């Protein structure tokens, strides 16, 4: 049953993603919203690499997301006006930070791990917030924009053609998601799932647990940084809010809402969250209450996530 499911569902997901800019307007959205869904979906999937497939409760991924955003923004503004280089450096900055923090916390578990990741997430927030001369402080980094994409034989103007930008984002998304799927199918991915299922048994089998958790943390942080870099390019702007712990919480709720145990779940969760937030914040000033209520409802009624519920219905 599930095997047929995958063969049908995966092409449908890709078909929806490929055509999204064309029907988004018709259902009341806009292309930028479509970009946001894909980018934040990637961030939520990155978080879920740890949360759902390694079983480690990380709650500070906005840090790596935000560092990716700042890496990209500062590359274009100060270093070299190239979109590709911006993305590359954004990913490098975020991944290196995740590698350092990951090394400090790889021995911790459960609530302790969660608390430490939350707290460490804030270091970078304060650094960016306070280091006015370089990061622009509270105002963020403005006065730059994404550069035309030079492919050698042709140049694509992704700045003014928002559909072209969407497809660039989608291409990076596809690359990242493909890599993620490959990693999860590799011996590494299987080992991570084994750690999730029973850490003690995996340890007895000789798996170096700490090294695997560190690796998973770094990979996950790297994907989050990619999402962050794309996010900065999307708005041609970045500010300290892209590093704040509230964003980390949003990533986790996206993953939980869609279904932590499924590969595509976080993308679905992100789509629902982003559209809802867009709608609510344009209709009421008290959007925070709605988002908060949303958290409470999801935890109370959909702890398995939407795809988790569907899978269960189909499986049993």
């Amino acid at each position: 049953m599930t095997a047929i499911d995958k063969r049908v569902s995966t092409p449908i997901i890709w078909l929806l993603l490929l055509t999204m800019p064309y029907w988004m307007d018709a259902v009341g959205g806009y292309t930028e919203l479509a970009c946001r869904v894909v980018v934040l979906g990637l961030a939520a999937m990155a978080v879920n690499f740890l949360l759902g497939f390694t079983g480690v409760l990380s709650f500070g991924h906005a840090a790596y997301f935000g560092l990716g955003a700042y890496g990209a923004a500062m590359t274009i503004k100060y270093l070299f006006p190239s979109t590709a280089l911006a993305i590359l450096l954004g990913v490098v900055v975020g991944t290196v930070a995740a590698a350092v923090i990951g090394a400090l916390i790889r021995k911790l578990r459960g609530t302790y791990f969660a608390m430490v990741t939350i707290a460490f997430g804030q270091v970078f927030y304060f650094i960016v917030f306070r280091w006015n001369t370089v990061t622009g402080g509270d105002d963020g980094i403005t006065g730059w924009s994404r550069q035309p994409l030079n492919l050698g034989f042709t140049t694509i103007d992704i700045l003014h053609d928002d559909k072209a930008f969407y497809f660039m984002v989608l291409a990076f998304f596809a690359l990242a998601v493909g890599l993620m799927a490959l990693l999860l199918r590799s011996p590494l991915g299987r080992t991570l799932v084994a750690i999730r299922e029973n850490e003690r048994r995996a340890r007895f089998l000789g798996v170096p647990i700490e090294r695997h958790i560190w690796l998973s943390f770094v990979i996950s942080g790297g994907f989050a940084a990619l999402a962050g870099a794309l996010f900065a390019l999307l708005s041609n702007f970045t500010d300290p809010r892209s590093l704040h712990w509230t964003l980390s919480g949003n990533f986790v709720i996206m993953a939980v809402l869609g279904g932590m145990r499924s590969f595509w779940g976080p993308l679905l969760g992100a789509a629902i969250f982003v559209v809802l937030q867009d709608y609510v914040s344009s209709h009421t000033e008290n959007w925070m209450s709605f988002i908060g209520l949303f958290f409470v409802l999801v935890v109370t009624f959909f702890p398995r996530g939407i795809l988790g519920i569907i899978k269960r219905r189909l499986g049993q």
Partner: protein
Amino acid sequence: MTQVLLFNVFNGLIVGAFYALMALGLSLILNLSGVINFAHGGFLAIGAYLAYSMMPYVGFWGGLLIAPLLTAGIGIIVERLLIRRLYGRDPLYSLLLTFGLAYILEDVARYIWGAQSVPYPIPSWLTTPLSTSFFFITGYRLFMVALVAIVVGALFLVLGRTRLGMRIRAGTADLETVSALGVNVSVLRNLNFGLGIYLAGLAGVLAAGMLGLQPTIGTSLIMPSFVAIIVGGLGSLPGTLLGGLLIGVASGVTAVFFPSATEAVMYVMMGLVLLVRPRGLLGEEGRVQ
């Protein structure tokens, strides 16, 4: 120079005492129920605003006395209705629930009392500086430290000497056995949550007198409390107290030499502690799951 340094150490101690007060409440809840209460900052704000609203009727002292109790009452109700269902499940869910509550509480405060910062009047004899030549310290700050010391002393007395405190400590060590011995664990956790929220409310009223009042007051204060718990060691209340004071002093001293790193320094400290002692300064080996 030494004078400035001394002043900042003392000031750091005051701030640290305040962090500790908030962190102790968080720690109580975390130890017994395994819930990372993200909404702690939200409860803190509610406590402060309640005191602000009742001040015209009961004055500063009445607010200080009643508002934290009311906040604890709200906490007890919230625990009954929402948080209780999540005990025994993955800590992820209670974390997300309290995260959502934090959003709601901040927004409720904004909705009722407005987004603008409002001043929180304190008795005039507390606002006059005790000494302008040596230390520029207002009586309020001294009063804060004294009150925190009394409350923390009382808390440790309650935990050490009373039946309820004994049960809380026993439950922290082994909840199942405590339950098997006939203690109503559900009520115990409920009261313990209320106690933790009481401390949050009290911290809120005290903070309002020092910083003024705005809806985000809790959100900005919750991270240092997390750091205090981690530095001190998860599962250890004396550790939390120590952690709070340490990061307060560290921030105070840093403010002299490198002002822009005032906030970051506590995280650096946390990193160093984790590097040397992954369980925190007073955390016990094997106590953390």
